[in-house]
């Protein structure tokens, strides 16, 4: 069975721990009290060389807040020069017209701006006062500059009812994609996971909203919906895809350590940014190729996809492969078992 690819398809690169905002759900514990230190421009250049050599297709620049780095434009240029598709996840607050002008020579493939409500009252309660207006302004500037944008939303108790309105806002602001994620039990999100995660009924409300409108919306925006699949399994909203071949299964299940990885600000390589303390190696001491091919951490993550006792005979195995290793690790203390959110696991 195909447990992983020869090299990552996508690498997430955390540029600095500092962020001008301090969102309650931040998986990387970023905030204004964190440092600006990350891999140097020279180290990032060497890394981009290796990513190109490995034929990695995409690099996702994250933070903290990527635009808090003074050399962000140079970093983007380094990646673009090596034919890497660059995506950036930002809160948008530090984007100015002058900054955007500097992006014209090496435009990122996509800039995702985080917005956790359809109005300032809701989004600011989650992300900080003034953050909504700044994010909307950034989206307008980006769209006007002809850059491709997405709105990224973390669904929680405070905002799930507004998600249909955030989709309307996505259309109104001319963003090309909408990305919905669930609250993740990582970083500060771990401490609010139980009281802020969506209930089954709330996930079904969102699923039904999107399934009714998917055809109409998909003509206008790309939808990337990370709806809790265990809820869909349980409530019959999902037909098992038993016919999936190995390649389709690789596409549709968690890519963590199998086709993607994350590199932190100190060079640690993680299977996923949500697993902060599971380190496969460090690019300051080893090549990414060596880590990808030889790390016992990656080997263990990949073994999950060969079978989990608690999931034996599950009709959804091919669509799930035991769920999210990171959430399993963060909630259960290890990633060898089935995702604790799944009620079908024995």
């Amino acid at each position: 069975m195909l447990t992983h690819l020869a090299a990552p398809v996508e690498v997430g690169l955390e540029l600095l721990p500092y962020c001008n905002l301090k969102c309650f759900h931040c998986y990387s514990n970023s905030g204004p009290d964190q440092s600006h230190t990350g891999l140097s421009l020279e180290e990032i250049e060497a890394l981009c060389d290796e990513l190109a050599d490995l034929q990695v297709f995409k690099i996702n620049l994250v933070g903290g807040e990527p635009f808090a780095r003074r050399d962000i434009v140079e970093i983007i240029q380094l990646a673009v020069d090596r034919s890497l598709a660059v995506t950036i996840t930002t809160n948008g607050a530090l984007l100015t017209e002058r900054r955007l002008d500097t992006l014209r020579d090496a435009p990122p493939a996509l800039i995702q701006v985080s917005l956790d409500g359809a109005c300032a009252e809701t989004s600011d309660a989650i992300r900080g006062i003034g953050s909504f207006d700044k994010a909307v302004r950034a989206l307008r500037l980006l769209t006007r500059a002809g850059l491709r944008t997405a709105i990224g939303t973390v669904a929680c108790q405070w905002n799930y009812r507004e998600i249909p309105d955030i989709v309307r806002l996505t259309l109104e602001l001319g963003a090309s994609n909408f990305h919905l994620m669930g609250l993740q039990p990582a970083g500060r999100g771990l401490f609010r996971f139980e009281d802020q995660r969506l209930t089954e009924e709330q996930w079904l409300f969102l699923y039904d909203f999107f399934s009714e409108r998917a055809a109409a919306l998909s003509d206008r925006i790309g939808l990337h919906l990370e709806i809790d699949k265990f809820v869909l399994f349980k409530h019959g909203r999902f037909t098992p895809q038993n016919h999936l071949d190995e390649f389709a299964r690789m596409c549709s299940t968690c890519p963590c350590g199998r086709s993607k990885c994350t590199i932190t600000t100190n060079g640690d390589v993680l299977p996923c940014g949500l697993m902060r303390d599971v380190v496969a190696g460090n690019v300051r001491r080893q090549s990414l190729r060596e880590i990808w091919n030889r790390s016992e951490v990656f080997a263990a993550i990949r073994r999950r996809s060969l079978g989990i006792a608690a999931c034996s005979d599950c009709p959804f195995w091919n669509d799930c492969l035991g769920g999210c290793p990171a959430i399993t690790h963060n909630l259960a203390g290890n990633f060898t078992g089935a995702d604790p959110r799944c009620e079908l696991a024995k």
Partner: protein
Amino acid sequence: MRTGKVKTFSLLKPVLRPGVRYRKDLQGGVIFDAASLGVCFTNPTGLVILGEINGRRACADIVERLQHRFVSTSSRRTVQRDVRRFLKELASVGLIDLEA
């Protein structure tokens, strides 16, 4: 009618859309589309067909070259069927254009 369609398809020249790249990987290949930022996978047969696409070769030329290359392992009909099916699938998901 059927013959006409087959003939037309044979004359078309497949070309990768801008931003579409692929690489050889374990048990096949990985295709990346920079426009959608999407990834899909293909088996070794698809990877071989992808390697024949250069924007100048017509579908019929690709079929002929692969029939020659795999003469000892696959029937001519199988090669023709696999190439047609794969190229049509790539076109339907927007990874290639079939140019006249």
